[in-house]
């Protein structure tokens, strides 16, 4: 028992090391290649220089202001997409005639990359928050819809039937069986969608908006401030990583009931 715990303690320390090893190596490579002038420093400034520049931009509030502007658009556009696509996907999944009626439109719209909407968004909404929010909405909505639809169709029909013979009506079957069944798949959809939403907002801000991380990066490029371009990229990466961790934690909490695949146990039998 105690031995076990000790072993687990050591292995968690090791796995922590393993997690940070690759980022550390990459950081050192970056720093070294810049310092040793293996690459042109104006094209790839050393990591420490980028970090200190980033810290300065955080302290002056410039970076956080732009980040907040981008995050606000992401929340708005993606929130709107969730509100439309999740009930919509469930409805399409539960009512096949509706799915058939919308199938062509949905599959035709999906391959249109979000940047393809930018010209139209500017024509319709001008410059500002609106075109960015619109592009995020358009860019995430259809894939969310398709994901929700597929997950709804994969719900175990026997569970639904079971709920009916236990006295549930149709609406209760949706609320008490179909929705809880969808939670794991929907959380995955949200994780993927968030990444997509950040791509959309950066693309939109590079042309259609006067604030935000995307705009900050374009401006930095115009002034040939490579550090600032990299600071912008790192800011997006950090926010993306943070959101993903948050959603993973939520998934762990909400999906405790799942048996799941435990690779450690799977391989244990082969020892």
């Amino acid at each position, binding site marked *: 028992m105690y031995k076990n715990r000790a072993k687990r303690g050591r292995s968690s320390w090791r796995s922590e090391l393993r997690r940070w090893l690759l980022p550390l190596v990459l950081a050192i490579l970056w720093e070294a290649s810049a310092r040793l002038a293996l690459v042109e420093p104006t094209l790839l400034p050393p990591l420490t220089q980028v970090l200190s520049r980033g810290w300065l931009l955080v302290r002056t509030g410039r970076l956080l202001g732009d980040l907040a502007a981008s995050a606000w658009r992401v929340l708005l556009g993606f929130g709107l997409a969730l509100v439309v696509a999740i009930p919509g996907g469930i409805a399409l999944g539960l009512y096949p005639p509706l799915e058939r009626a919308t199938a062509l439109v949905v599959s035709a719209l999906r391959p249109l990359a979000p940047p393809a909407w930018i010209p139209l968004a500017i024509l319709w909404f001008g410059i500002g928050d609106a075109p960015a929010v619109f592009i995020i909405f358009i860019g995430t909505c259809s894939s969310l819809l398709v994901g929700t639809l597929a997950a709804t169709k994969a719900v*175990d029909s026997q*569970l639904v*039937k*079971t709920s009916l*013979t*236990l*006295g549930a009506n149709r609406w209760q079957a949706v609320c*008490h069986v179909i929705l*809880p069944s969808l939670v794991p798949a929907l959380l995955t959809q949200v994780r993927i969608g968030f990444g997509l939403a950040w791509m959309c907002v950066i693309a939109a801000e590079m042309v259609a908006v006067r604030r935000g991380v995307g705009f900050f990066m374009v401006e930095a490029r115009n002034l040939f401030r490579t550090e600032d371009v990299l600071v912008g990229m790192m800011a997006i990466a950090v926010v993306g990583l943070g959101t993903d961790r948050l959603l993973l934690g939520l998934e762990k909490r909400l999906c405790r*009931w799942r048996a799941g695949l435990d690779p450690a146990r799977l391989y244990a039998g082969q020892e």
Partner: protein
Amino acid sequence: MSFLQLTQISKRYLTNGNAIVALHDLSLSVERGEFVVLLGPSGCGKTTLLQIVAGLEPASSGEVLLGGRPISRWGAERTLIFQRPNLFPWLTAEENVAFGLRVAGLEVSQRRRIARQALGRMGLAEAGHLYPHELSGGMQQRVALARALVLDPQVLLMDEPLAAVDALLRSHLQREIRASCAGKTVLFVTHSIREALILADRVVVLSPQPGHVRREIVLDGAAPRPPSLELARLEEEIERGLVIADSTQAQPHLAFPQT
């Protein structure tokens, strides 16, 4: 007029453009408090028949009367227990048992108390807080049984609930099913002749393609019955009858697995 009355039930459906007759003119009556076992090989429409009585599938023709009134769609008064326990994996054992009470609108404290008692009667008092994946197959099926019984259905429908359970556990669960269903009207489906003879007040033997009633056997004595020479003889006789009947069909042996 019997408590549960099935009159000339037929069920036809289309598969790949071929019309399949699953049930043909099947009539059956079940008295209140009777434990009737429907026995038959795969493909005789037993499951379809239960789904029709449960209201999950409409009959092509015929009528199902419960207490003299035609059944409407599905409802808790005709609860169906499937071969798979079908517990809701996101609910604990106790919440699973309380599911029917919850959709019926009972208060939390009340349904929790009832669910706990029901689990206790199944010998699962300690398992209430566990999720289905933490329970063994036999425990899951007992939770499913408790979940149906707390609703006190007018008819309890069981579709081979023990088919996936190992032999040792099966005889234990057979005893438990009969004990917990005392006085209840039950329609129980199985393809095991022995199980039918152990459990039933009356065995209804179905023949396949299309499903219809071949014969009915009323058994006396309290069920579940211990093994006896008489039961063994009866088992053999039913089996022979079915094999002879099936020998005109394409796949006589596949149609009737041994237990």
